[in-house]
Each structure stands twice: as structure tokens, then as C-alpha cells.
């Protein structure tokens, strides 16, 4: 676009400088703390961290919940996105708007609403005991189930939006063509729609997984200390124990998880292509 490349570089400079100073440098300092040991560089901080059974459990729980939330969002997201794409442009706009709406409400308020809904005297338990499904109110609050529900609700819109834009780019005649050629709906989804929208799934999946494993408010409020996840453990280590060493170890683990999830999803998408 510019005849002189230097103009481009000059234009990019403020952004690059800002990212360097405000993001890369502090993150670098934080992360270097995780590999600095009294005796020099090393991974002893990580071995100490993973030697604690409680922390192993927290890492495993974070991975498990992150994966489950991503899977559930993908399943619900595809169904919703297919329905949305099938409507008229005006309705589509309204429906997408409806999905974006929760993103505009503070996560704190949304999460507190779940406390009321999932509580002992909340809506869910009123239905369950009212229908006679259980004599005792179910214990939902401060369980993994509550955290799972809260996280799915929080991140589902990101998945739906990614899938809607992927499905919109789907050539209009591929699905009818597959149907005409005798494919049933299951075959159409797995052999036509899924392969052609995998880019959207990779983007949505990465957003949802990264969001779920790094969310703080939802696990803190709906799970509490009985359902520790890496993010709530990180907060606990910093704010209560002033243990910045464990905190930087956790930060590295979280970044590694997000990068790995993205790489894994991309690979899965690429493998399908062949």
C-alpha cells in the first residue's frame, strides 16, 4: 500500500511499542520468575508444584472442566448456529443480538444470578422437589456442576458467534446437494458441514477453552475453595500467601494449556482435511 516501507514500519511502531512495554515485558518478567531458582535457572519450581497432590487435582480439574465446557458449547453452539443461519437476515440479526446481550452484562451479576437459581431454595430445586424427583433439595452450589453450568453460559455466545460466521460462509448449495445425493442429516453434518466450518470451530473452541480455564469469577463464586481451579488457586496464592512463585508457575501452566488447546484443535481440523 505504501510506496516506502518505512512509512508502514513507522505506523506500526506505536502499537508494537505499546504491546512490548505494556504486555510482553511484564509477562516476560512474570514468567521468568517461574524458572528462576535459588541455584540459577531450572524447573524445580514446577516439580515442587506438581508434587503437591492438591495442586495436581486442581490442574486436572481445570483441564477436565475446560474440555467439557468446550465440548458442551460446541454441541449446543452448532445446533443454535444452524438454526440462526437458516432464518431471514432480519431475524438473524436479532437472534445474534440476543446471543451478544449476555456479554454486555457484568459477569459478576450473571454469576450471582446463578447463586439464586442453583441455591437450596432456588428455581432448580423448587422444580426438582416440586416434581417429586428428590425429597431433599440437591446440593448444586459449590460443586463442579455449578461451575460447569456457569462457564457454559458465560462462553457459549463466543462459540455461537464463531460458528454463525463460519456457517454463513458455507456455499448455499452444498447441503441440498448432499441431501439430493442421498446423505442423511448425520452424514451431512459430519461429512459436509463440520469439515467446511472447522475454522470457526477452532476459533470458537480456543476462545471457549481459554476463557473457561482462565475464568476467575465463576469458579470463585459458584465453586469456592471446594472446587479450586487454577485461576482461583492463583488468586489464593497471591492474595493470601504472597506466594508469587507458585503464581508464576500457575500462569505458565495456564498459558501452556491455552496454546496446547489451540494447537490440538488446529491439528484436528487439519487432519480432517486430508
Amino acid at each position, binding site marked *: 500500500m505504501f510506496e516506502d516501507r518505512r512509512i508502514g514500519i513507522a505506523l506500526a511502531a506505536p502499537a508494537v511499542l505499546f504491546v512490548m512495554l505494556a504486555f510482553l515485558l511484564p509477562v516476560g518478567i512474570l514468567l521468568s520468575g517461574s524458572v528462576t531458582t535459588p541455584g540459577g535457572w531450572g524447573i524445580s519450581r514446577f516439580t515442587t508444584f506438581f508434587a503437591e497432590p492438591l495442586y495436581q487435582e486442581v490442574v486436572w480439574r481445570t483441564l477436565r472442566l475446560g474440555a467439557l465446557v468446550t465440548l458442551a458449547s460446541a454441541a449446543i453452539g452448532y445446533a443454535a448456529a444452524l438454526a440462526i443461519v437458516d432464518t431471514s437476515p432480519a431475524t438473524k440479526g436479532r437472534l445474534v443480538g440476543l446471543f451478544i446481550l449476555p456479554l454486555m452484562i457484568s459477569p459478576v451479576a450473571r454469576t450471582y444470578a446463578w*447463586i439464586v437459581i442453583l441455591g437450596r431454595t432456588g428455581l432448580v430445586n423448587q422444580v426438582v422437589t416440586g416434581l417429586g424427583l428428590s425429597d431433599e433439595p440437591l446440593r448444586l*452450589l459449590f460443586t463442579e456442576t455449578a461451575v460447569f453450568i456457569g462457564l457454559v453460559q458465560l462462553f457459549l455466545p463466543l462459540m455461537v458467534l464463531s460458528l454463525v460466521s463460519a456457517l454463513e460462509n458455507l456455499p448455499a448449495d452444498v447441503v441440498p446437494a448432499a441431501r439430493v445425493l442421498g446423505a442423511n442429516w448425520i452424514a451431512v453434518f459430519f461429512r459436509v458441514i463440520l469439515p467446511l466450518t472447522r475454522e470457526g470451530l477452532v476459533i470458537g473452541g480456543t476462545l471457549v477453552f481459554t476463557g473457561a480455564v482462565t475464568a476467575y469469577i465463576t469458579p470463585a463464586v459458584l465453586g469456592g475453595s471446594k472446587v479450586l481451579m487454577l485461576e482461583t488457586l492463583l488468586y489464593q496464592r497471591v492474595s493470601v500467601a504472597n506466594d508469587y512463585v507458585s503464581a508464576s508457575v500457575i500462569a505458565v501452566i495456564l498459558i501452556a494449556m491455552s496454546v496446547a488447546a489451540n494447537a490440538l484443535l488446529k491439528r484436528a481440523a487439519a487432519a480432517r482435511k486430508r
Partner: protein
Amino acid sequence: MRIALGIAVALASAVAAPASAQQPTLVLSAFGVAQDQLRKDLYAPFEAKCGCKIVVEVGNSADRLAKLEARKANPEVDIAVMADVNALEAANKGLIDPIDVSKLTNYDKLYDVVKDPLGNKMGVGYTYYATSIIYRSDKVKIESWTDLWKPELKGRLALPNITTTQGPLLLFMADRAFGGTTPDFATGINKVSEIKGGVVTFYERAAQLAQLFQQDEIWAAVTGRFNWPLLKKLNMPLAWATPKEGLTGGLNVLVLTKGSKNKELAMRFMDEWLSTEAQTRLAMSQVDSPANKEVKLPPEIADVLTYGEDTAKGLKLIPPAQMLANREAWVSGWNSKIAR
């Protein structure tokens, strides 16, 4: 031109002079809470008396302790307030000086429990609080710490997490109530792990309890007296237990920084903080429960604070030295038996 400049400089220094005219400055390191009220009730009246200026550095205990340590050679802070255990840590690291209590005119008015909590007169307590069980008096009856193990409280109990200041206090009283004898609270930890399945949550923010009581999630919780005013406002049948094993609690102390250049002024300020007048003002504003036994409070204020000779005498506190030596062991015991 030169003259004009000269006049400007002269004027500027004349304007600046009163502020720096050798007005002594005392630097206080304190908690971030209620600073506006402390200024009104304590700092401002003292500044008027001494003709000095009080500068406050705020932060949590751990941060402020780290700062004191970093500036050990050339301390900026003259006087600090801390939780007893952090103050003992400061003493062990050689960051604070013993206090000549004979120079404190108000020292004899203090409750015994706050007079020398760290030993060697390293710190003087200025406030304390009790911790007990708050419960639904229409649902359960609580007369002992062991009542928390009653079957009717299964699925109806909130306990403090070990990461809060209240967590170790719970272990301390559970250990005592069930006849524990070791400083690592092994008995207490085992006992709490027996009921962990029936604990709704191990809370980390005391403010959470109001919501849990209100939504009928819990019928009992272990918490500090400072949470009582908020819970009383719920207008529910809640009661503050007086278990037969006694109440526990915590206290905050005033300490003098080693190498402070304003030791005399710091001592005067400390004496002022402990005075009946200042302690009464701070109690009436519900900032701190009084450590001075001459403070007389109306019932409605006394009810929301930790107050009175009987309370002070019956208080079972974790000795700071035991806390310092065993805190890590309690956390790892908790993490392996209760948190998982």
C-alpha cells in the same frame, strides 16, 4: 530580569517555607481500612496537639512487612500496626524495637490480654476481636465447639478456609474441643475432615455469609465478631454462641520501627492511640473494639463490637509464636486432608 527572578525565588521559598518549617512528620504504616475515620478520630486530634504531621502508608500486613524489611537500613516508617503474628515475624527479623511501657501513661488501663502479646514488650495491642459461631437459634442450639459436628448441621455449615485469618482459629478451637495436644493441630484437622462433606463451603470472604444465611443455605458459621453487625441486619433468628470451651479471636498491635528517627513522637502517638478518649471515639465509630478497659460504651455499640472484661478474660488466642512456627504445617495438613 535578574531582579525579577530573584523576587520570584524569594516568594516561592517564602510560600514553601511554612510547610517545611521543621514541622515534625511521623510515618505510620497501617491497614487500608477505615483510614478516613481514623484520620478524624485519631490522627487529626493528635496533629493538633503535637503540631506535627502524620503520614500514613497503607497495605496488607505481608506487603508492609516486606517493605519494612527492604528499608531496614534506613527506615522510613516510624510506627506500624499489624496483626500479632506479623509483628512477631518483624520482631524475629530484628525490624522493631521493644517498647518502654513505663512511658505510656495509658498502659495500665489496657486489658491484660493485649499488654504484651509478643513477649519482651515488642508490641502493645490496641484492638482485638472475638471469633465464635453464629447460628440459627430457631434450628439448632450451640453451646460447644463440638456442636458443629451435630448431624443436623450436615449440609448447613460454612467454615472459614485455611487461607483466611479465621481458618487457623477454627482448627485451634476444634483441636482444643476434641482434646488435641500437638501444636500441628492434627486432632483438629482430622475432626474437620470428618465433616468436610457436610460443609457447604469453606468461605474465603466473610461478606459471603450474609447471603448464605439469607438464602437458607446455612444454619451455622464460624466467623469473627466484626461480621456480626452485617448479619444482625438480616433480621433473622441469629445468635452469637458462647461455647463452653470459650471464644477465640485475634489482636492487632502497635510496634516501633528499629532505627526510627522520631521515637519520642512515636511513643506519644502510641500513648494517644491507647488513651480512653481516642479508644472511645474509635469504638463509637465502630472502627476498632477498645483494648482500654476504661472505655464505656452504650449497649447498641457494645453489641456490634468485641467488648467487656469477661470477653477479654475468656479469650483463647493462638500464641503468635505457635502460629509462626506451625502455619505452614496447618496449611499442608489442611490441603491433604480437607481441601481435597
